[in-house]
């Protein structure tokens, strides 16, 4: 489904040269739910944006469904952290935006948005504007907008990062429900270990400077997952172990930099 090979990304400006991603290799299967987990600055969002085709890679390549990615494509849709809804469009118009962009006739758009609004439980809000909605509702609309274009790959960039704990759990469960109903492949960026474990089939743990894949941890437990079991605790400790290793490492680097100055 998704094949990432020797991917690298450098940001070069006259006064700096940062290696954001280095030698990323990753294979994601059809229908798989994969999280990209790591501290801020590890390049997980950069990787997601490259897969989305929003920014180019410096080296290596990405193929989705066997086609090399050189820009955005109809088989991919993105859910952004800050919802990115258009305030001047009603909830329904926002959901239909991808379809409108593809010149889908109005009656078809209507049918699709009606279906998705009921899936996300916002039928009564179809004609409201986004600023009337809570954060959780906004992110539901954003998810519906992505689903409307029927992508095979759903890219989610810390979608629940700005939500309170309770809303977050509700939306995680809804996402899992939607994921199993619509059978999408999902790449999910998060910095929450708990969230990654609760949702994913596999967790890609990334390290900072340069952004590299440190470990890929499989979570085999059936859903819905009870996070309080010893089994889940063990997974949590395992992931934490990998990340803490990384924290020690980065603070070493930091210490080196300080002494270097």
């Amino acid at each position, binding site marked *: 489904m998704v094949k990432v090979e020797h991917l690298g990304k450098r940001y070069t400006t006259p006064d700096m040269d940062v290696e954001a991603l280095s030698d990323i290799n990753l294979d994601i299967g059809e229908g798989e739910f994969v999280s990209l987990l790591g501290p801020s600055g590890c390049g997980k969002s950069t990787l997601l944006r490259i897969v989305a085709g929003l920014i180019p890679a410096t080296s290596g390549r990405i193929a989705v469904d066997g086609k090399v990615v050189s820009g955005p494509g109809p088989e991919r849709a993105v859910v952004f952290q800050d919802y990115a809804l258009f305030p001047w469009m009603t909830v329904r118009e926002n959901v239909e935006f991808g379809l409108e*962009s593809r010149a889908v006739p109005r009656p078809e758009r209507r049918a699709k948005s009606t279906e998705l609004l009921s899936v996300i439980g916002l039928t009564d809000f179809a004609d409201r504007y986004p600023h009337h909605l809570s954060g959780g509702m906004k992110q539901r609309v954003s998810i519906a907008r992505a689903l409307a274009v029927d992508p095979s790959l759903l890219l989610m960039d810390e979608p629940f990062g700005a939500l309170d704990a309770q809303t977050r759990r509700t939306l995680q469960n809804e996402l899992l429900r939607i994921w199993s109903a619509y059978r999408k492949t999902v790449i999910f960026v998060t910095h929450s270990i708990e969230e990654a474990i609760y949702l994913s089939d596999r967790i890609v743990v990334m390290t900072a400077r340069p952004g590299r894949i440190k470990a890929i941890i499989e979570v085999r437990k059936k859903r819905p997952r009870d996070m309080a079991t010893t089994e889940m605790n063990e997974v949590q400790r395992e992931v934490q172990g990998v990340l803490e290793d990384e924290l020690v490492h980065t603070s070493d680097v930091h210490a080196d930099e300080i002494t270097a100055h």
Partner: protein
Amino acid sequence: MAKSTSQAPLGIAPPIGVEAARKSLQREGAREKLLGIGTIILFVLIWAAIYASKILPGWAFPSPWQVIVAFNEIVTNGTLLKNTLASIERQFTGVILAAVVGVPVGLLLGANSTARAALLPICRLLYPIPGIAWIPLAILWFGVGFTSTVFVIFFSGIWYVIFNTMAGVQTLPAQHLDVARVYMTPRWLFARRILIPGALPFIITGLRLSYGVGWRVIIGAEMISSIVGLGFLIDDARWQLRPDIMVCGMITIALIGWVSETLFFDWVERLTVERWGMKTN
């Protein structure tokens, strides 16, 4: 209003503190209104006092009462209506033309760096030329009357529309542009559904400014290059030695400017950017 009631649980009165706070806010609002009106009344009283003191000769300085009488005269004989309509027609034509040309140019300048590099310097160079400076040329090109006045209004106002529209596009959140790229939105749909509504708060500001400038320039233009309009009415009153009519013209300009600024543009904002939650009060 509907918003605040929907937030409070049904059947439960807001706490007394909230009620008292709202009352005091209302009192504060009423006090501010009274102060504003009071100052206007004071202004008219000072005006009357200066007239009574005869510092300025009576044939050059009308009393408030004489102005009211003059108003009655030019309303009854139809000159006020005729000249006001002429000015409004020119003003609307000029501002609408400025919008029709200025908004697309501003969108282009905001969205395309090549267009910006090519066109921005000349826009910056033409912008500081006062509209009035164009009048003699406009008379040579279009003669005295409608077209030259409209031209001057157009040329005075278009820069505000262009620069504000451009700023509106440039300050659009990057996430909106990302969404358009993800869904591969065609160019025309992108302009219509994202650029224009996204830049609308700025576009409205640009139109407001262009309207204001046009209304200021039109009077000068009509004094020089017209035989009808409020500017003509004021200038013509000079030849008749009728300062009361001049003041009538000025008051009419003030009222129309005030009404259209506050009523029309505020109405447009309520209908659009305020409804969308894009205006922070």
